[in-house]
């Protein structure tokens, strides 16, 4: 069953560029990149119960590292990807040591403090990062010498990494290790008394989360060809947190849906109104108060109802066929 879903996803992503216009492909690419970013944060927020308001720091670290390596060393994807991921990995290693000492609000504030320090460092290092103007002139990424000059190639690279990471994270959170993380979220004291060193578990979750956040940042530079300090600012951390929570924290597909909703809404709505923040605020509050389980929770509940209900289902035959296979 899982393999079938996976196979269909591969097919759909593979086929998408043959059906969709460039604009939609670039939108889809952006959604996938931000979905990876949201998935990485979800390991912390959804599975370990640590709410971070500084996740953009890792996104930025990965993105700037990839951009700089691309400019000064080589634009080869293998180099920039490894470099960017390594930098965010090391950053997560260091920041994690400190962040593991605190919980709850203090964790939120400490991640915010670290990300703002990294933001002001990037902002001030004008000669390297371009300061407020951002890092531009990042060469087109190339894979084994082949230039990925077209959005379709960037899309494929992103889609492949997305599918791999999605599968990887799914396996990870269902593994014994992942179950311990969920245990920490639900009742850390209990796990401690059972003899688990919860700090180590949280630390590993933090490092994985940060590293993957960096990976999405690297993809972002491939996609856009630039990186600006606004992508490291705390508002970016806030946006990705909104994606996770609207979509459904602690589920796999939730953050992906959240990322898709935010990107699509912003693209569609902002054409008609500049009251975008108002709308986002209303949607967000609506989810926090009335639908705390997120889009995925609502989807699950309503489809369950819908399928049980008396509404005629046009594609019933299809469903049956699927069942047989």
């Amino acid at each position: 069953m899982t393999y079938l879903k996976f196979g269909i996803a591969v097919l759909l992503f593979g086929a998408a560029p043959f059906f969709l216009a460039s604009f939609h492909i670039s939108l889809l690419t952006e959604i996938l990149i931000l979905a990876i970013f949201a998935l990485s944060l979800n390991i912390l927020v959804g599975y370990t119960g640590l709410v971070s308001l500084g996740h953009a720091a890792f996104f930025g670290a990965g993105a700037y590292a990839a951009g700089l390596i691309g400019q000064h060393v080589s634009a080869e994807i293998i180099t920039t990807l490894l470099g960017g991921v390594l930098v965010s990995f090391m950053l997560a290693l260091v920041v994690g040591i400190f962040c593991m000492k605190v919980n709850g609000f203090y964790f939120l504030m400490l991640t915010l403090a670290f990300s703002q320090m990294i933001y002001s460092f990037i902002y001030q290092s004008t000669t390297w990062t371009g300061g407020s103007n951002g890092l531009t002139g990042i060469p087109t990424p190339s894979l084994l010498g082949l230039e990925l000059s077209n959005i379709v190639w960037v899309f494929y690279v992103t889609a492949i990494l997305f599918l791999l990471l999605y599968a990887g994270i799914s396996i990870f959170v269902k593994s014994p290790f992942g179950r311990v993380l969920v245990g920490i979220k639900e009742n850390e004291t209990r796990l401690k008394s059972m003899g688990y060193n919860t700090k180590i578990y949280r630390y590993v979750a933090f490092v994985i989360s940060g590293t993957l956040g960096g990976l999405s940042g690297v993809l972002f530079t491939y996609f856009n060809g630039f990186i600006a300090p606004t992508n490291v600012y705390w508002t970016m951390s806030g946006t990705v947190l909104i994606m996770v929570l609207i979509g459904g924290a602690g589920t796999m597909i939730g953050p992906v849906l959240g990322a898709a909703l935010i990107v699509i809404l912003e693209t569609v709505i902002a054409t008609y109104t500049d009251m975008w923040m108002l709308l986002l605020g209303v949607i967000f509050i609506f989810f926090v108060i009335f639908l705390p389980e997120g889009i995925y929770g609502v989807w699950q509940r309503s489809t369950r109802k819908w399928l049980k209900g008396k509404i005629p289902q046009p594609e019933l035959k299809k469903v049956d066929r699927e069942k047989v296979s």
Partner: protein
Amino acid sequence: MDNIETIIAQFINGLSYGMLLFVITCGLALVFGILGVLNLAHGSLYMMGAYVAYSITVSFGFSFWVALIIAPLTVAVLALIIERTLLHTTYKLGHLSQVLLTFGLAYILHDLAKLVWGANVLSISVPSLFSGSVSILGQTFPLYRLIVIGVGLVLAIGLWWIQNKTRWGAIIRAGLSDSEMIGALGVNIRFVFTVVFVLGGFLAGFGGVIAAPILGLYPDMEFQTLILALVVLVIGGLGSITGTFTAAIIVGVLETFGRYLVPEISMFIIFALMAVILIWRPHGLLGKQVTEG
């Protein structure tokens, strides 16, 4: 350049900036300390105070003093509405939901303010009584800055007195450590929460009016204020007016000297201080341990 007069002048600058930070932050600290609600809409309430004061003084032509009373009251009413319609529904959902709710509110108020007052840079002039300058050791200081120091002091003493010397303060302190116990004593804790949130809104609005002649009114002002207030709050620690007061002055003086000595990294220093405090003393300089949600 590094003469003693300059150092003293910078110290006065830092003190007045710190007091301004205290006036801005005390409402946030009060609400966080007692309700456990990290009110991310605090900056927005501050902004509303400033904008309402702008309307009162510039659009309707009343004096600054009228604005100083009416604007915080208006914001207090807004806080009351928010508490009664939205916030009270989240008490059962846990602290995270409350934080997120206020975050959403901040977004909504941002656009509402833009709708009503536009995106122009606005300013309120200093009340004519305090518009002059004073010379101290050969350095000129605007009189209003020195008045702000006084306002901060009075506010700090007032809040300290309420918290430590009155029945209300006793209830609040008890609510901070054990809200169930208070309920058992026959005090309606929900009512206490409402009152505290409205008082927090009033103080936010008051901060907005006091700060407006110095900091001005412009789009995104609330987020900038919020971040600064959060820094002060964290450094000071929870539920302690004395802690917030101390932290505000430390941040004010440190940032002023940071700008003077190492201007390029002054913002970095403030966040580094915040990080160090969080790691070294997670509950702030003078804060108490509070149960987390």
